[in-house]
């Protein structure tokens, strides 16, 4: 009954209630949106870090983790391979070589990590092959020699990401309905090769106004982009005696993931060719990456694999990508903060009202306690029932205490419902593995 009276009371004063309802609605909407965006980011990052970078588990030589030396390959390879094959939780796994090296083009030099891979098997574990920039080459193939896959970022650093306006580019832009006067001025830049995005945007700034660039700048830059596929990259690395060895590879494709930090360093070649370059007969295995059917099994699988080879160490994605794992864990804190805010807000809201009401009420009661209220109209009826027609209101301190407690209690109980609701939505729980 109290509930229905409370509900009816709300609609007694429509405007008042609507103001409160709107305020609360907006607050909750922005809160949900904020958490939703955060959640989206974190989930996406987690998905990418697992599918592109670290998989669910990796095995390395324990020493390799501290010091990425070439001779620190896995110690118990045959046993480990057999054990992984026997695991039902595994959806795919690969062996890789991983070597720190320098990459050179005539124009630039950068430090990189060269991964020696088996392209076909790699496709079953990582999704880099799906991240090839459209029209920018292809993933390495075991049957093609001397090829290297680099990232968009790496191409930029090595100055293999050029911009050039050709007749074809102008035709394409015409197809995109770019005005003729812009195309006409674009011909001034024709056939000039720009070796960095910066050079090109500066050249565009000289020819066009800011407004024109806002409208067409991105389109022009996109069409003028010319990756130097098939160009030669010289890779320098040290063999096990520390002597530098060099090999030339041709760019077969350009990939781009969401993580520039990873992209900048990671280059991929056929493992066989990397071994040849180092003067090895066999492919070096520095790393095993395992993809599971279910991320939750990572901890369990780690335990199963851990005892197999004492010289190697098994790590889960949480240890391999602590930043992503930390974000994941922090998300739970964000939920608590968000929920805490909802709850505290309700409590503060009610308490402020309650305290103001109680102080004002107390003052009014004090005054009326002196003067009394005369229910003259209904006096007869009151008195008939034994109540005085003139009332002198009284409040005792314990009433205030009781009211305060009651208000806080109601506030908590009423905010528990949305809080619980929000908690139930917690998706990160599902991704936790430990």
């Amino acid at each position, binding site marked *: 009954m109290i509930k229905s009276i409370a509900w009816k009371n709300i609609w007694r004063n429509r405007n008042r209630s609507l103001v409160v309802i709107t305020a609360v609605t907006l607050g909750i909407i922005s809160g949900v949106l904020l958490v939703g965006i955060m959640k989206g980011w974190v989930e996406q990052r987690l998905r990418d870090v697992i599918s592109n970078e670290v998989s669910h588990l990796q095995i390395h030589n324990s020493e390799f983790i501290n010091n990425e030396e070439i001779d620190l390959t896995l110690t118990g390879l045959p046993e480990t391979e057999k054990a992984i094959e026997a695991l039902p939780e595994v959806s795919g796994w690969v062996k890789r070589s991983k070597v*720190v*090296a*320098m990459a*050179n*083009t*005539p*124009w630039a*030099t950068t*430090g990189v990590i060269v991964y020696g891979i088996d392209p076909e098997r790699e496709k079953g574990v990582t999704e880099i092959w799906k991240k090839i920039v459209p029209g920018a080459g292809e993933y390495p193939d075991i049957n093609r020699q*001397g090829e290297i896959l680099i990232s968009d970022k790496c191409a930029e650093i090595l100055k293999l990401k050029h911009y050039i306006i050709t007749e074809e580019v102008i035709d394409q832009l015409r197809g995109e309905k770019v005005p003729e006067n812009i195309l006409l001025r674009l011909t001034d830049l024709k056939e000039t*090769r720009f*070796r960095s995005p910066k050079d090109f945007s500066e050249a565009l700034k000289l020819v066009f106004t800011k407004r024109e660039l806002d409208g067409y700048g991105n389109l022009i830059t996109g069409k003028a982009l010319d990756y*130097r596929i098939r*160009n*030669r*990259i*010289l890779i*320098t*690395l*040290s063999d096990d005696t*520390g*002597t*530098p060895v*060099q*090999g*030339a590879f041709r760019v077969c494709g350009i990939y781009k993931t969401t993580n520039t930090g990873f992209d900048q360093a990671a280059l991929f070649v056929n493992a066989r060719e990397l071994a040849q370059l180092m003067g090895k007969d066999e492919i070096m295995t520095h790393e095993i990456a395992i993809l599971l059917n279910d991320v939750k099994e990572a901890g369990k699988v780690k335990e199963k694999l851990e005892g197999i080879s004492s010289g190697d160490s098994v790590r889960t994605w949480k240890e391999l990508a602590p930043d992503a794992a930390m974000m994941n864990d922090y998300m739970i804190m964000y939920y608590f903060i968000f929920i805490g805010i909802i709850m505290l807000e309700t409590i503060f809201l009610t308490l402020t009202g309650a305290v103001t009401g109680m102080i004002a009420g107390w003052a009014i009661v004090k005054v009326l306690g002196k003067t009394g209220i005369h229910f003259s109209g209904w006096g007869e009826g009151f008195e008939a029932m034994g109540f005085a027609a003139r009332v002198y209101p009284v409040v005792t301190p314990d009433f205030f205490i009781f009211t305060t407690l009651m208000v806080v209690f109601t506030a908590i109980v009423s905010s528990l419902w949305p809080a619980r609701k929000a908690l139930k939505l917690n998706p990160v729980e599902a991704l936790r593995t430990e």
Partner: protein
Amino acid sequence: MERLLKTAFQFSVLFGLTYTAYGQGITATEIIRQADEKFNGEKSGYSVMSMTIVRPAWKRTVEFRNWTMGRDYALTLITAPAKEAGQTFLKRGNEMWTWNPAINRLIKLPPSMMSQGWMGSDYTNDDILRESSVVTDYVHEIAGEEMVGGRLCYKIMMTAKEEAAIVWGHQIRWVDKNDFLVLKAELYDEDGSLVRTETGSEIKNMDNRNIPTRIDLVPAEEPDNRTVIEIREIQFNIPVEESFFSQQNMRRVR
């Protein structure tokens, strides 16, 4: 350093040796091989050089002494500026070390340092150590005859072989017809854009041979940057043992 010296040697040739004797029948590869073999043919050498690094905002000069033996051994001592004096570099085969007296440390140069400019110049450590050969890693072709610095030169087009570990697409070298001195070299990337130009000039007679004593290196897209090598003194076939090129000697040599 080896490269510096190598370049110096390439520019140098014994007086009296008349390569013109080969006449017009000489092949492009032979021209390059002979220009290159000036260096390989020598048993040992000692030289004093200075290297001036010119940048738009600053300029500095490094002076050094070089000892070399064959293609595999080289020792370089920095003598100026005072801050870097005493620093030595040792090359044995394709390994390279550096000794820095200020920190009392011997460091083996890892590949990561190979591509850094040597002493801040446009030369990289990699230029110095590079195993590639101008003779075997390129296909050569005579592209004509041109005058460079008042001397008639063969213009040789050198195209990098497909499998060679070279970043360049091709080079053009101008080799003096009489003395087989490389007077100019242009290095191009695979798209055919000029990356850098090296020129030899101020040909002087040193230790009884003609050599260009000044070499200018200019990166094509930064014409305000340049590195200038000047050869102050050079001696060939000095008495030197392999044991001279040791890590112990890196600390002792003066």
